[in-house]
């Protein structure tokens, strides 16, 4: 029983007592499945099991995987990012031009595409989408998309041409038009408030993708139907026209053993979030595992240097050297979770191998701590000026096996005389404590997005700011990444950030995080967008 559940019961029990007292793919070919298959078959309904219930279908908030899995299938985007090459390809936009300093983008639209209520996907509709995502709509509670920087305005040139302008170079914008955060919605849907994008209203969301939501059972089930008239898949796809499936039945099954069991017992066709310890069971039963990478900032532990205990770079370097990421991967995870070699994933744009900074070296760690003046106390934990080198980290619920990972890290750190307390907390305490570097000196997180900007999202003080940084130099380096129009120079600037993070020992990269799915042998055409959200357009069933 989860803690929230226990609290719910306790709360109700308390009230009950009171009452008593008182009263009385990309693409080209269906490639996902291993077994050679015949020609795709049209028809059938896919039973897909989700780990968590979706919270909101407003595309800029679709980063949460349960939201993204839905938005990815009900919306088309201006462009498509090929998940293998990471190139940006046409989709709703047939072509585009970008001015030299990346402050003006003009897109030509294909014209014949429509939203599921029949309204055309024209320049005015696209302009309204990006005005909303780029500027937000405070009156409706709609937030600005994290993927869009420096947005200024849109201009409808003609019915099929739209121009976007930026107050400063926005080289990440083209990639942003391909992400689910920029999923195209009908103009009327964009007049909904943020609440109306929430649960209970899913059938009102009018998108532009191959599927529409036809039914919702609050918090537990969604039903999708294929759009018969959908005919605007990215031109690079071999498959055009409507989706092969007639529909999808998405069911929320939070319990791991229920999801795995349903798949193996033939009650479900496709499940998200196969835990590392269940992978062997799925494969040995003859089922398929898919582990698309999330290609962004790796699963890592941030060292919040504004905490006085971590202000000395030698202490941070010691902690980095005292963590054995290989052991984490070997004991808790599988081959689908490669050991990290930089703050960025090796499949991310701009990646640089920084492994020399991240070698496990407990002896070096001990030396560094000795140099920094931390001496072993009576219980083996180091002390200095009467202070213990004792740090806290909270279990991060969205990260796979976060608690187990952190507990192993704590064991490793104990060997060099650093105490790490791994805490679990209710949502409220967690939300408050992680904003305080004294209460939460170490922070476990990751973020996936297949663009250079992802590193700024994670570390800039105006974005996620996971380090709770006050380092102006770090901010400056990150701003260069987000505003450098020349792709070659963007690679350099991204590598400069990775160098800086490694030299300053600001992060302990652990592993490159995948999303792990399981499918039945008769499920073909399994594909993912560039950061591992499922695409059901090409899926077909052979049973």
């Amino acid at each position, binding site marked *: 029983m989860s803690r929230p559940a226990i609290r719910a019961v306790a709360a109700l029990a*308390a009230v*009950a007592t009171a009452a008593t007292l008182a009263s009385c793919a990309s693409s080209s070919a269906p490639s996902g499945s291993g077994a050679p298959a015949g020609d795709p078959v049209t028809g059938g309904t896919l039973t897909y099991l989700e780990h968590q219930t979706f919270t909101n279908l407003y595309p800029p908030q679709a980063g949460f995987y349960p939201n993204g899995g839905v938005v990815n299938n009900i919306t088309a985007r201006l462009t498509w990012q090929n998940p293998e090459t990471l190139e940006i390809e046409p989709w709703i936009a047939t072509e585009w031009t970008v001015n030299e300093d990346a402050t003006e983008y003009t897109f030509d639209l294909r014209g014949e595409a429509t939203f599921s209520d029949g309204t055309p996907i024209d320049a005015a509709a696209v302009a309204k989408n990006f005005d909303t995502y780029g500027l937000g709509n405070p009156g409706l509670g709609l937030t600005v998309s994290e993927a869009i920087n420096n947005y200024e305005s849109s201009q409808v040139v003609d019915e099929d041409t739209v121009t976007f302008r930026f107050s400063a170079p926005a080289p990440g914008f083209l990639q942003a038009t391909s992400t689910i955060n920029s999923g195209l919605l009908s103009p009327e849907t964009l007049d909904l408030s943020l609440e109306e994008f929430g649960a209970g209203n899913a059938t009102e969301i009018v998108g532009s993708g191959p599927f529409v939501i036809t039914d919702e059972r609050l918090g537990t089930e969604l039903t999708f139907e294929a759009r018969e008239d959908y005919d605007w898949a990215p031109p690079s796809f071999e498959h055009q026209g409507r989706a092969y499936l007639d529909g999808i039945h998405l069911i929320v099954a939070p319990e791991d053993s229920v999801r795995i069991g349903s798949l193996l*017992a033939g009650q479900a066709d496709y499940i998200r979030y196969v835990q590392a310890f269940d992978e062997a069971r799925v494969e040995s039963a003859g089922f398929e595992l898919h582990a698309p990478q999330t290609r962004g900032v790796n699963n890592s532990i941030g060292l919040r240097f504004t905490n006085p205990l971590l202000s000395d770079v030698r202490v941070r370097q010691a902690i980095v050297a005292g963590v054995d990421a290989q052991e984490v991967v070997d004991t808790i995870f599988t081959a689908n979770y490669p050991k990290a070699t930089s703050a960025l994933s090796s499949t991310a744009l701009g990646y640089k191998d920084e492994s020399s900074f991240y070698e496990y070296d407990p002896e070096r760690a001990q030396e560094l701590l000795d140099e920094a003046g931390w001496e072993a106390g009576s219980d083996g934990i180091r002390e200095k000026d009467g202070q213990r080198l004792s740090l806290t980290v909270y279990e991060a619920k969205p990260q796979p096996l976060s608690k187990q990972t952190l507990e192993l890290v704590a064991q490793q750190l104990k060997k060099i005389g650093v105490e790490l307390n791994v805490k679990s907390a209710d949502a409220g305490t967690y939300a408050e404590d992680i904003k305080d570097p004294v209460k939460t000196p170490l922070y476990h997180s990751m973020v996936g997005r297949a663009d250079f900007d992802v590193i700024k999202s994670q570390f800039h003080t105006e974005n996620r700011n996971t380090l709770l940084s006050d380092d102006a130099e770090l901010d400056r380096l990150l701003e260069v990444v987000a505003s450098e129009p020349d792709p070659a120079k963007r690679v350099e600037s991204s590598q400069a950030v990775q160098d800086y993070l490694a030299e300053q020992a600001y992060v302990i990269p652990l592993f490159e995080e995948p999303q792990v799915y399981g499918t039945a042998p008769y499920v073909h055409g399994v594909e993912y967008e560039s950061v591992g959200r499922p695409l059901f357009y090409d899926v077909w069933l052979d049973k």
Partner: protein
Amino acid sequence: MRYALRRAGQAAIVLIAAYTVTFLLLQLLPGDAILIRYDNPELGLSAEQIQQIRINYGVDTPWWQQYLTTLAGYLRGEFGYSTQYGTGVLELIGEALPSTVALAGIGFLVAVILAVAIAFLSTLSPFGWLRRGLQAIPGVFVSIPVFWLGILLIQVFSFGLGWVPIVGADPVVGLILPVLTLAVPISAPLAQILIRSVDEVRLQPFVTVVRAKGASESRVLFTSVARNAILPTLTIAGVLFGELVGGAVVTETVFGRPGIGRVTEQAVANQDIPVLQGIVVLAAFTFIVVNLAVDLLYPVLDPRLRSGSRRANAGTAVPESTPTPVEASA
């Protein structure tokens, strides 16, 4: 009439008390729904944007002001909107309720059947070892975690034997395993009370008289003992309502069923105060109704309680050690 009015007044006081207590408890918790949902690194919002959202939701006002605003809303029949989903609280509860009522109602019925079966079989059993075995069952049942039982039933009957699908099952079939999961732990205290009060009633003089007249053991049980033994059980049944709701939370989560339990679990996890308030008021209301129904059933089962003051007659007829009915002394 006066009795009914007094009961209605009590009910209103209980409702407001339940509402107030939850409101105060929730205020004491660290954080709030807006913080949890928006002031989260995952969204990358700036401090000004979050402040604007706080103002829009009115969580920047002092707690007593929020308390009065929401209380006034309740009195007007407006239950507010979920801060997590934006859905109306009444809509959220209204959609989840039928599923939970079906689960809890049938679960309770099955629990009663189980409890009666255990108690009567153990009483009638001619063998000591069987009797002792049956009497041990409630102790075992009460110590089984609902969560574990649910998983076990799914693994054995759905995945192992393939008798009942749990994904995409039709509504009736889909109820079988959740109902069992819920019924087993609820049946345990019921059976325990029933066994004990059957034993106690059987020692009463009037039973000896019936037996002396030549009635068989089972006849004695069904005609004379059962009726009297059922009173304390019924009282406990009313109190068990709370446990039923708690069991539903776990059962619905394990089986991925829609319902109040799931809604509550989510609302607690996200400190969705408007939804929690709605659920608490609903729970308190139902609790009052259930207890009222139990009270009104006493006179039906026990003719001695039908006329005049209940207290005057009760002392002589009801065995001393029987738990006093919840309402009898009010």
